[in-house]
């Protein structure tokens, strides 16, 4: 009995525990969901903020760098502007300054003591002068026959040299101060292209080594083809002529022949006083080292880098690892006229993304985010610098804009975002673990509470169950000791009260049983007497049923008669039920045909059997009277039955179908069950007889409802007639045999003789009925055309 209590307790604890687990789980899920959405919101905000901040930083940095680059480039330009302005003044004020220039040309430190070099066939000032002045061979007069190895400088060239003697004061000073410069120089106009250059160097000697053939070629065309023509075109542009600063012209960066690294040359042309003729140009070789170093030294995030490119995509400043990432390939050997130009083009990169990278066309900072380079995402930021006049190789002077680019790995920009996300995920996991721990702890505490409370409750139940068990064993003296104030206490008191009442009743009951037993014995004696009378009655009824059964079977056609029928193989079967059911069938020879009838009288017992006899007699009589009209035949049978039923006072009717067979045609009249036709090939037809008549013996005249149908029979065709005792036969489960089973058994047996088919039907029906009662007569007639 103790198990009852523990089972209840187990269930109680289980229900409470499951409810608790569900509640806690739902609460944990809800908070997790909150944390997760909070985390994703926070990372999104961080991402946006980071992106904004990093863009702002990159933009500012890029713009600063651009300004810095322009400043570095512009400072040299400004210094060149000073030189150009002084030179232009010397030309413009040539007449007024004539005494000064003459004096300067003659003054010791400023005097240009040009010496002809017979080996080089040029003239150059000796070392120690503030500037080197080189006068190329073709600026000399032809050699005098009497002075072999000595040529005089053309007088107009010598005059031109003297005119710029004052620049000896300016050039060295300017070179030493300001921007980092390789050299500053002046070159005269066509026909007087002498070179005045600071610092002093063996300019002509270097040129001989580096540029063979220079000494007999006009300077501008040899070193800077097209540049003077470009400048001269500006003569037609008054705005530009008014603004000397706009005439600053730069070459593309190139490697210095003298080994000073990357440089670029800035020129500014000067003009004659009337501004109609080109009067030479001042130039400065700017060392790009500082600029390039500056670009190379830029550190962006972890491994980001900067680069500087020309309009044509030639990258002339980039760190080595940056060059590697950009996939730039150096093209050596290309020469822009007299100077060697850097050749590292973006569009010749090994990387398709870089090859496709278009430089910006506007002034704004241009973001390309992301650019997949070598399988990694980069943020590329581009900005175009201010335009300047550029001469690059042999082409004309065109405006050129350098592009400054930043390339930063996206992962480094968003590194802090990833870190923030990791932190959020880690803290979410922490919260999850805490949540689980709290849930488990709460579960443990509450389960312990339930366990303790349930022990008290189930203890009372166990006592009650034990008490009830004793009562079941007829121990009515049992009482339980449940004294709590709650419902269990009330239950215990009620139990004790009931046990007391049962005990009292039990004693009364014994007395009652004695009285009842005496009464029952009296009743039993009466029943015995009654039973005796009933047995006699049963005997009478049994005799009556026996008579009915005999009557019914007596009038059936004997096998001998059936065997005599020509053209048809006929077999009939009837098994009356315990209470005969009034089934009828008959097969009569009639001239050259056969008349077959089958029917079923309603109800059971002697009365049904008698009516069946009447049908049999009426049919036989009309057949003997040679009634040929099938409809009239049936109507007369009906009328005879009706009148007899009225006279005798029977409460019975019957179904009846009459069949006439002659020469392969079977005609059916009257309403009964369906006729099943199995053709020789096994196909089945069912002939409904509902509309061929109506129940007989219920109305005096049924002529209006009688109709006829016919079936042609070929040899081997089988027709099966039956009563509802077959189709409505029930098995032990109350299921009816039905017409489908009948059709199936006939189809299986149709090739055998009629007797075998009949036996197959009977066997199948009886097997189906099994142990169930046979409710009704079982009748079938099998007709097979021979």
């Amino acid at each position, binding site marked *: 009995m103790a198990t009852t209590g523990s089972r209840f307790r187990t269930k109680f604890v289980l229900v409470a525990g499951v409810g608790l687990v569900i509640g806690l789980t739902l609460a944990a899920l809800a908070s997790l969901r909150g944390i997760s959405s909070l985390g994703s919101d926070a990372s999104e905000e961080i991402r946006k903020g980071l992106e904004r901040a990093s863009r702002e930083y990159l933009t500012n940095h890029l713009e600063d760098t651009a300004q810095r680059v322009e400043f570095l480039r512009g400072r040299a330009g400004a210094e060149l502007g000073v030189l150009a302005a002084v030179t232009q003044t010397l030309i413009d004020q040539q007449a007024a300054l004539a005494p000064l220039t003459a004096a300067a040309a003659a003054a010791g430190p400023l005097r240009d003591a040009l010496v002809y070099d017979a080996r080089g066939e040029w003239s150059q000032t000796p070392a120690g002068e503030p500037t080197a002045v080189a006068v190329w061979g073709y600026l000399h007069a032809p050699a005098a026959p009497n002075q072999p190895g000595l040529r005089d400088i053309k007088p107009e060239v010598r005059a031109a040299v003297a005119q710029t003697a004052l620049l000896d004061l300016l050039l060295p000073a300017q070179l030493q101060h300001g921007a980092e410069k390789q050299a500053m120089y002046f070159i005269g106009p066509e026909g007087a292209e002498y070179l005045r250059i600071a610092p002093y160097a063996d300019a002509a000697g270097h040129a001989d080594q580096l540029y063979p053939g220079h000494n007999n070629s006009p300077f501008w065309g040899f070193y800077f083809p097209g540049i003077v023509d470009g400048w001269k075109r500006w003569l037609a542009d008054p705005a530009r002529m008014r603004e000397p600063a706009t005439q600053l012209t730069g070459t593309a960066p190139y490697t210095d022949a003298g080994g000073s690294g990357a440089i670029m040359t800035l020129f500014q042309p000067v003009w004659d006083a009337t501004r109609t003729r080109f009067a030479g140009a001042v130039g400065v070789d700017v060392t790009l080292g500082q600029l390039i170093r500056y670009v190379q030294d830029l550190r962006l995030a972890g491994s980001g880098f900067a680069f500087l490119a020309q309009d044509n995509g030639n990258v002339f400043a980039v760190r080595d690892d940056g060059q590697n990432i950009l996939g730039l390939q150096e093209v050596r050997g290309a020469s822009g006229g007299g100077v060697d130009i850097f050749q590292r083009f973006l569009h010749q990169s090994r990387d398709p993304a870089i090859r496709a990278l278009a430089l910006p066309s506007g002034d704004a900072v241009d973001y390309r985010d992301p650019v997949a380079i070598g399988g990694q995402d980069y943020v590329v930021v581009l900005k175009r610098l201010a335009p300047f006049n550029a001469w690059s190789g042999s082409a004309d002077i065109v405006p050129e804009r350098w592009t400054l680019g930043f390339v930063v790995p996206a992962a480094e920009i968003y590194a802090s975002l990833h870190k923030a996300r990791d932190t959020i995920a880690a803290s979410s996991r922490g919260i999850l673990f805490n949540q689980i721990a709290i849930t488990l702890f709460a579960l443990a505490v509450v389960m312990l509470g339930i366990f303790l409370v349930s022990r008290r409750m189930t203890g009372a139940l166990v006592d009650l169950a034990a008490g009830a068990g004793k009562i079941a064993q007829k121990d009515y003296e049992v009482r339980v000791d449940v004294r709590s104030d709650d419902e269990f206490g009330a239950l215990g008191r009620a139990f004790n009260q009931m046990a007391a009442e049962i005990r009292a009743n039990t004693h009364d009951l014994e007395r009652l049983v004695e009285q009842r037993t005496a009464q029952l014995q009296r009743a039993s004696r009466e029943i015995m007497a009654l039973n005796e009378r009933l047995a006699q009655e*049963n005997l009478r009824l049994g005799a009556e049923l026996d008579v009915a059964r005999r009557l019914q079977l007596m009038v059936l056609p004997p096998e001998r008669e059936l065997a005599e029928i020509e053209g048809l193989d006929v077999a009939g079967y009837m098994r009356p039920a315990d209470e005969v059911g009034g089934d009828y069938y008959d097969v009569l020879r009639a001239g050259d045909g056969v008349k077959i009838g089958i029917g079923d009288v*309603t109800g059971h017992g002697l009365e049904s059997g008698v009516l069946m006899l009447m049908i049999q007699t009426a049919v036989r009589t009309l057949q003997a009277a040679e009634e040929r009209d099938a409809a009239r035949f049936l109507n007369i049978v009906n009328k005879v039955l009706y009148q007899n039923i009225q006279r005798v006072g029977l*409460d019975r009717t019957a*179904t009846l179908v009459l069949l006439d067979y002659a020469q392969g045609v079977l005609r059916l009249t009257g309403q009964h069950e369906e006729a099943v036709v199995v053709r020789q090939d096994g196909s089945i037809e069912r002939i409904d007889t*509902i509309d061929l008549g109506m*129940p007989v013996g*219920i109305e005096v005249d049924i002529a209006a409802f009688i109709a006829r149908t016919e079936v042609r029979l070929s040899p081997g065709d089988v027709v099966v007639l039956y009563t509802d005792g077959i189709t409505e036969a029930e098995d032990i489960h109350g299921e*009816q045999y039905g017409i489908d089973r009948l059709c199936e058994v006939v189809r299986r047996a149709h090739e055998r003789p009629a007797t075998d088919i009949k036996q197959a039907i009977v066997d199948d029906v009886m097997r189906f009925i099994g142990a169930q009662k046979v*409710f009704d007569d079982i009748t079938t007639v099998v007709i097979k055309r021979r």
Partner: protein
Amino acid sequence: MTDTTTRPTGSETDIKGPGYRVWFDLPARTLHFEGVLRLSTSEYKPIEDLLDGVLQASPTLALRMTELQFLNSSGINMLYKFAIAARKKGETEIKVHGSSTIPWQGKSLPNLKKFLPAIVIALD
């Protein structure tokens, strides 16, 4: 004859026996036939009386057979006689609800129309 299983019980308008029940729903004027009826001719007397009484009370009547799984030939005979009685009375409005899936109904209910042309037979 100790077999008492087919003996009906209940009131005159609610006849019950083992496996069957025939009862009259007065507000709907519908006579319900339910279960399996396999009585002998004489045992149908109470049902016959019920049918007769209901018909005499009012010419409008419905018979619901959709729950009647089986009716033996004596029972069918009783229905035929009821139809004839209704025809003789004239001016009746009788509707029979049946089910075409129950074999006996498809076979026998159409006959009611022959005895009582005015009857309405609804098979579902």
